[in-house]
């Protein structure tokens, strides 16, 4: 009977502990993903402002500069635009953001910031586009700093918290 109790204790503590560790990891991943999107946006800005590359191609190139899942935002949007089904960038970008929301750690605030550029992206001259991208860089920096601060303060809490919560549950059960 003792071995069964011991197994139960181990399972409960490790279950809660893993959940906590996953939470901590997701916070770190969010920082990384925002950073990757920010870098891709910077790449996109250069393609637009200096090379005047059309957005479908510029986005495909930007996607190659960063790892998944952040790259899928640009890849998916580029594909939708290249299909030429009468879709505007605003619509393609919104649909791609919905997709990435499900497979990334980005929160609503991050998605709102990225959505804010959709109506303007591509639809003005190069100088105006530079201003737009400078603005989005600032917004993404702020989101990244916030995410980093949250990760720093929350990482230990979640990592240890999971195990502590697991241990508390065990004590209560015993």
């Amino acid at each position, binding site marked *: 009977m003792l071995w069964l109790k011991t197994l139960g204790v181990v399972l409960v503590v490790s279950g809660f502990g893993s959940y906590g560790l996953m939470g901590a990891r997701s916070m770190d991943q969010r920082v990384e993903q925002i950073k990757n999107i920010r870098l891709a946006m910077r790449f996109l800005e250069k393609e637009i402002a200096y090379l005047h590359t*059309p*957005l*479908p191609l510029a986005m495909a190139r930007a996607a190659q500069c960063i790892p998944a899942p952040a790259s899928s935002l640009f890849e998916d949007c580029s594909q939708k635009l290249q299909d030429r089904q009468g879709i505007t*960038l605003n619509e393609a970008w919104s649909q791609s953001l919905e997709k990435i929301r499900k497979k990334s750690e980005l929160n609503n605030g991050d998605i709102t910031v990225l959505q804010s550029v959709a109506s303007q992206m*591509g639809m003005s*001259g190069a100088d*105006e586009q530079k201003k737009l991208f400078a603005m989005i860089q600032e917004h993404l920096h702020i989101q990244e700093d916030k995410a980093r601060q949250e990760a720093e303060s929350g990482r230990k809490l979640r990592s240890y918290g999971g195990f502590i919560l697991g241990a508390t549950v065990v004590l209560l059960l015993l």
Partner: protein
Amino acid sequence: MTMRDEEIIKKDIIPFLSGRIKETMLKMPLECFKGMEEIRLRFGQPLALKIGDKDYSLDAFGRMQEDLSRGYIVCADDIYRSIAAISDNSLYAFEEEISRGFITIPGGHRVGLAGQIVLGGSEIQTIKDFSGIAFRITREVKDCSLTIMASIYPRDLEPVNTLFISPPRCGKTTILRDVARNLSYGTSKRRGCNVTVIDERSELAGTYQGRSQMDLGPRTDVLDSCPKAKGMIMAIRSLAPHVLITDEIGRYEDIEAIQECVNAGVAVITSVHARNIEEVQKRPVLRELLAAAAFENLIVLSRRCGPGTIENIVRWDELCCG
């Protein structure tokens, strides 16, 4: 011809229209595509189709309406979507073209733009808040110039200076394009010439992303979006052409450049907006050019029997000797 026109419009133009207009146009009977020259979208106004000399509109069922007020009313979203499609959602990539008032799309068709003009100093910088779009359907009519080639190219490697005189929409650009092609290919009797096309408004070659969309022959070089006067001088110096072809001359610097070319032994084939020779002679700049015997041939075009009707071919020596 009907099939050809339908194919051109369905392949090259309809993909750039908004979903609602696209659906409406795809319901149109096939014979309505024949001879379509323009599709115009104006904010708050009926969709307008120019077929021959008449304007029509389309109702929601794709039926042609002579009474424009019964046609589909174009909304802001239709214009926004068409602009997005034409520019590949990348207006910044077409700044140069937009500042000139049009964008060329694949197939060489020209899309004219209307909206609020933004000035940078005294120059037009761009257009914003688009309110109108005019799709002008370009067609290659191969060999439409065959009947006049004997006048333009009477001797081997010696095409003669020729001026096409034509009011707008009489097919002068189509004929000039075909002349370029025929000179470039040559015939069994006459060798192909090196031709340089100075295409200031991307109409003759229909250049899209640096590539000519029209068949201008194997010996043709195109200076796209190049001011005519500068292009003519540049071509003489760098491309060794036998013939220079350009469209719609009229400025003083164009005339100077033509005289330079003629003196350099390069044939110039060009066009001017006018209804007849008398109208050309009323314009001081052109009168000077005619008086200097710069052009051996003057060819007058009209729409009397459809675009590209040759009204008259006048040799300069006949003109000055009465």
